[in-house]
């Protein structure tokens, strides 16, 4: 791998007393999609929270585009080009779709630029164009996820962290989201995707990493991991394949 866009070295992080991540190493190659899989509670979301500054690492280092960003605030990390689309629904339900988009540009001080970007996003997403003045809470689950990702694009990020974007969606909505992930990646954005549905996630990813008890247990090309018997046994059996 060439100089990675993002590198985590021995990251330790957690909530309260216990540590959830216990010396995690991970590198993301620029311009690729990496899928992070692992059992419930393994700490996948916790990795993303550390990367977006929601949770600070207790030990270890996060290096992004050559700079140490371990101690930066969420706003500063957004400025560097890292956006995080959280696992829970994260639109502001009583605000319009349009206002939600504008919130996506909150850290930009140039209002005209925010407006231009929002216009461009409305141009690109029919959903945004058509439901612009509706309250975001009135959209379906799949539509909300699409708007969340669209909102994340307001900052034209280098790295997008997507936490189980297809959770709870029907196959059609899931397909739309995966398609969008592919498009976003083709624009040159690096994606770190957490997927409950490991089979589908690994299938669209260049690289995969398996998280187990706070460490990366296995890494490899997405397709390799799909075929790896250990992975298959752990995560691609019964529940995950459903």
């Amino acid at each position: 791998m060439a100089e990675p866009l993002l590198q985590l070295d021995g990251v330790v992080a957690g909530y309260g007393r216990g540590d959830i991540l216990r010396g995690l190493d991970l590198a993301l190659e620029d311009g690729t999609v990496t899928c992070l899989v692992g059992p419930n509670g393994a700490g996948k979301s916790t990795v993303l929270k550390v990367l977006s500054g929601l949770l600070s690492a207790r030990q270890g280092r996060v290096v992004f585009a050559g700079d140490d960003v371990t101690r930066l605030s969420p706003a500063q990390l957004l400025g560097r080009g890292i956006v995080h689309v959280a696992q829970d629904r994260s639109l502001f339900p009583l605000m319009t779709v349009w206002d939600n988009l504008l919130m996506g540009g909150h850290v930009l001080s140039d209002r005209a630029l925010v407006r231009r970007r929002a216009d461009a996003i409305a141009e690109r997403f029919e959903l945004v164009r058509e439901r612009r003045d509706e309250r975001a809470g009135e959209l379906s689950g799949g539509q909300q996820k699409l708007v969340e990702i669209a909102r994340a694009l307001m900052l034209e990020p280098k790295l997008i962290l997507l936490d189980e974007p297809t959770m709870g969606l029907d196959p059609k909505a899931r397909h739309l989201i995966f398609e969008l992930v592919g498009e976003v990646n083709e624009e040159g954005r690096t994606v770190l995707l957490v997927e409950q549905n490991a089979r589908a996630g690994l299938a669209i990813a260049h690289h995969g990493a398996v998280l187990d008890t706070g460490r990366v247990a296995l890494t490899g090309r997405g397709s390799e991991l799909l075929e790896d018997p250990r992975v298959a046994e752990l995560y691609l059996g019964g529940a995950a394949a459903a």
Partner: protein
Amino acid sequence: MHQVIQAVILGLLIGGVYALMASGLTLVFGIMRVINVAQGALVILAAYLSYALFSHAHVDPFLSVLIVTPAMFVLGVLVQIVFVRSLRGDDAEELSLLVTWALALGIEGVLSVIFKTTYRATSPSYADKTLTVFGYQVQFVRLMAFVGSAALLLVLSLLLTRTKFGRAVRATVQNPTAATLLGVDANRVQTLSFGLGVSMAAAAGAVYGVIYPFNPGSHYDLISRLLSIVVLGGLGSLGGAVVAALVMGVTEAVVAVEWQPTWASFSYFIVLIVVLLIRPQGIFGVRERAL
């Protein structure tokens, strides 16, 4: 009938001022889940500041709003940074009740030392002037207080709906984590909003002393009214607080003239209890966060 309409007018005018005080309380609750039980004491503090400006510097009480409000905004910001922000953890909401109640008692104590406990009233030359509109009596100062309160509530609602800061405030109310992930500085939003909430108490308080006599202990009665207003309106709902304040003002005024003044304040609590039995979340309250 004439008497009832007269009472309704009076109730609406008073309700408008209460709406302003309650707006600050409900705003702060919506943003940081803090029930600022010092809101009543802050109103009384502002009433004394305005009283002092009037009696020592001959500043008109309605003009003193322009001095008292910014000064108390700064006070609110400091209180938030020093006392409220440091409360963290699972019981932060309960602790904030104790802290703001301590603040209320502190303010009461200081005011008692400086001004004693005698009742005061700010009485400008026009204090007793009444206007007659279509045969109804309207006390000039109450009309002014109402118009001023309505104007400030309008400014507050425009601030929340039309500005970038307001958008960030609403975002924080609706989903604090998502707001943080988009770069909203939660501390800054909370501090400024607390200051804003105190400003609303300040503006209302500066004219309160023209309408009612007050002493340092007046905040007990005030806070119980304000709390019941925000509960009736739905905690966190600005529109709900306004409606509930008007309902309170009108109920009290009508009961006072039609029945007995002694039952007036009690009547509102009956309305409150009945509404809460039917709608536990208040008139405009939603079970989720809203603003």
